[in-house]
């Protein structure tokens, strides 16, 4: 089965450190999403790309978060500097969007703990 690969699976870091999370979308998928999941807020969309172009990053704190797609096989989400309130599970999802309705395939997530 094709799958979305996220690394690392777990990350513990100290407040103020830079954190980089990586995602390898499914080959051929043209849309990539970053979600954050917490008990309090549930699943929140942070940003998404289509054909590697950023379409929406309105859900992302701009001062410390950044998302990029250096190429079609890699998406990154960076937090600098990290804060304890950033502790969450971060999911990447990819899908093929071409005007029809498609669901997305989620990765298994990166569990981030900022202490």
């Amino acid at each position: 089965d094709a799958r979305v690969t996220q690394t690392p699976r777990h990350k513990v870091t100290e407040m103020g450190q830079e954190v980089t999370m990586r995602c390898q979308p499914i080959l051929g998928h043209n849309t990539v999403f970053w979600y954050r999941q917490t008990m309090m807020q549930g699943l929140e969309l942070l940003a998404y790309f289509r054909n590697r172009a950023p379409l929406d990053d309105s859900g992302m704190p701009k001062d410390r978060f950044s998302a990029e797609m250096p190429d079609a096989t890699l998406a990154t989400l960076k937090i600098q500097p990290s804060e304890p309130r950033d502790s969450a599970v971060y999911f990447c999802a990819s899908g093929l969007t071409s005007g029809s309705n498609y669901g997305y395939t989620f990765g298994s997530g990166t569990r981030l703990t900022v202490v």
Partner: protein
Amino acid sequence: QQQVKQSPQSLIVQKGGISIINCAYENTAFDYFPWYQQFPGKGPALLIAIRPDVSEKKEGRFTISFNKSAKQFSLHIMDSQPGDSATYFCAARFPGTYKYIFGTGTRLKVLA
């Protein structure tokens, strides 16, 4: 107006029973409504989805019922099995985008 309200928060069902999870929305422009299933330590996985011009969609033991006038939709799991124990999320798509807003989730436990 952009919210999707999901209930119940948790649900316990006996094996073989019917599990019903409900979602309500306010934005009538939402144009696609999927349900996702999430197991611990995994990402959500698409289960079934429906467009607002369809009142019901069935896939195996899973059925979505959609009531456009009431702005509600629900997931029915027939003959629930212990393997169905997971968290279920409804979602709605913003029109003309690829963005979804998710419900808060329902933790389902099916007793053997």
